[in-house]
């Protein structure tokens, strides 16, 4: 869908923003470009809609070299969302969203009808249509930014740190909403962030860049966490990648055991007979109520009569990850995580040790994903493309490109420095 072929971007002052990048982004998926500042991720993104022209190599979209299309025309077919939304302050929300349809000459009425549709799609009430950007919160502005990018229903969306200027709670909401939208729309999305957690949460594939504009690894989030290509990636992904990787392991596959569970109607004597330090008390539908501590049991009566320690939280076998299961074990007073089924009934329990043993087992199977070889291959081509750069720079045609790119750089403000 989007293909980078030995693409480099050098600036006249000698900095290299992107160095011999070869990358192919699949159609209909979210590819996250992530890395420290100055790693060329934003420059890479901007080369897709010709906001930045490469010094060497080609970028192609659906098999066509993007230089064959006039830049404004190309851009109308590619949605673009930026950090501070960049809404037009002098236009109403509705007209902001209608921007690209109007540029495409749809006519006011049709463009506005489309814009109203999009506002609804991104979860904004119709009453906001007539307002101006300054009347909206940061999170709402960002939603409008997304709606505007979707204006002419472009197959490709470029998103440059779209959620990094809002507070963490709003960011979480926007991310969830974004994933929901993508499920519906299946756009090909290139998403830039410096936040590895966001990358892992949102990306179908992640390209990790290192300073100097080199691709360090291109992989699925699971594989990135399980098998970082080198120390740089391992470091960038973070110390707790072992735990974070559990987010990708379904809780459904975890081995659970019956555990010391008794209905609330059972007698204290029955609970004692189990000879366990903690007994899980369930209701008549086997939904968990709480933990009873054996040491604190009364001499007679039923489990209904005694105070229960809270469950902490349970994890669901449908939908939750191994990370939630492990967390449940760590928070449980009995150190046992309680797994529940779709109806909320207890399916079984497991402690942290049992869980980690099981997870270690699945870790191996995760690692066997077929992309592994291809990924390493991409990184190698990127390295190998290095020498071509030198050749490219000597080529007068390319030098002209560089000047062009520079012109458009000053055109669009302070884009010249690449990543900011």
């Amino acid at each position, binding site marked *: 869908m989007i293909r980078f072929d030995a693409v480099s971007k050098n600036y006249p002052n000698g900095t290299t923003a992107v160095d011999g990048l070869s990358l192919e982004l699949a159609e209909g998926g979210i590819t996250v470009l992530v890395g420290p500042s100055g790693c060329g991720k934003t420059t890479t993104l901007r080369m897709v809609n010709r906001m930045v022209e490469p010094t060497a190599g080609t970028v192609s979209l659906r098999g066509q070299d993007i230089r064959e299309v006039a830049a*404004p025309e190309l*851009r109308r077919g590619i949605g673009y969302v*930026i950090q501070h*939304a960049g809404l037009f*302050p*002098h236009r109403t929300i509705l007209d902001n969203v209608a921007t690209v349809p109007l540029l495409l000459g749809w006519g006011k009425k049709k463009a506005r009808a489309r814009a109203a549709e999009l506002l609804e799609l991104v979860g904004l009430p119709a009453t906001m249509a007539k307002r101006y950007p*300054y009347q909206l919160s940061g999170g709402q502005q960002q939603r409008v930014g997304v709606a505007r990018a979707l204006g002419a229903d472009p197959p490709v969306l470029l998103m440059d740190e779209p959620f990094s200027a809002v507070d963490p709670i709003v960011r979480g909401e926007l991310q969830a909403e974004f994933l929901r939208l993508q499920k519906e729309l299946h756009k090909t999305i290139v998403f830039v962030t410096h936040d590895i957690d966001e990358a892992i949460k949102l990306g179908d594939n992640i390209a990790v860049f290192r300073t100097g504009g080199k691709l360090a690894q291109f992989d699925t989030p699971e594989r990135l966490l399980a098998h970082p290509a080198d120390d740089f990636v391992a470091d960038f992904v973070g110390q707790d990648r072992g735990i974070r990787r559990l987010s990708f392991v379904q809780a459904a596959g975890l081995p659970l055991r019956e555990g010391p569970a008794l209905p609330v109607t059972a007698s204290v004597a029955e609970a004692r007979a189990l000879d366990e330090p903690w007994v899980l008390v369930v209701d008549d539908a086997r939904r968990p109520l709480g933990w009873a501590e054996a040491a604190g049991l009364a001499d007679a009566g039923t489990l209904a009569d005694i105070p229960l320690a809270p469950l902490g939280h349970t994890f669901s076998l449908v939908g939750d990850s191994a990370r939630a299961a492990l967390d449940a074990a760590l928070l449980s007073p009995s150190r046992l995580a309680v797994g529940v089924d779709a109806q909320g009934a207890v399916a079984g329990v497991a402690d942290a040790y049992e869980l980690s043993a099981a997870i270690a087992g699945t870790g191996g199977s995760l690692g066997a994903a077929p992309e592994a070889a291809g990924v390493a291959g991409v990184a190698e081509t990127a390295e190998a493309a290095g020498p071509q750069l030198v050749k490219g720079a000597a080529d007068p045609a390319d030098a002209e490109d560089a000047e062009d790119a520079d012109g458009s750089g000053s055109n669009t*403000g302070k884009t010249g420095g690449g990543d900011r």
Partner: protein
Amino acid sequence: MRDGEPLIRWVWIGDHVGELAHYTGVHLRLGLLPVLFGLIISVPLGILCHRWRWIYPPTLTAANVLYSVPSLALFMIFVRYTGLTERTVMIPLTLYTLSVLIPNVVDGLASVPDPVRQAATAMGFSTVRRVIQVELPIAVPVVVAGVRVAAVSSISLVAVGQLIGQGGLGYYIIRGLQLDFPTPIITATVLIMLLALVTDALLVLAQRLLTPWARGKGAKA
């Protein structure tokens, strides 16, 4: 002033209402058309100065040098070409507005937030369309602030044009001096000040209507 002559003879004003109205109209035309012409010159020049920054310092210096030439000298220069006509007054006044309007157009364009400009480019605006549909409208509050200053100063400067017989209400000031008669001097002065104040108020109103989106950001003027 003659003994016993009051500062204002109201009867004189009553007798000259029609004439006063005529000269007020002339005064407005002589004062405001130069602002309009100044704007027509400053907007493209400002756009060029914003796009190619190196043009800006020499352009601004040239505008300021023009502003420093005494109006009387400019009138005398243009009289040779345009005679004792209104044009001879309006050309210097137009040149004077440039030193206020050009920097305001440039500052107005610079007030366009960078993300907005980038977003416009990325949406597929061509450069020309972006300037006209996005950047200039956003520059309006800053440009209007400049227009207000230019209009007020231009309206009060018109009176000097009476030295070549084209001064709008300035006519009464010179006549009053010649006749040692204060009523027309005071009347004309007050009218000129009122014209300036009303014009300024109308410009503020126009800006509010033109830029409802700028409210809440604090008046930039």
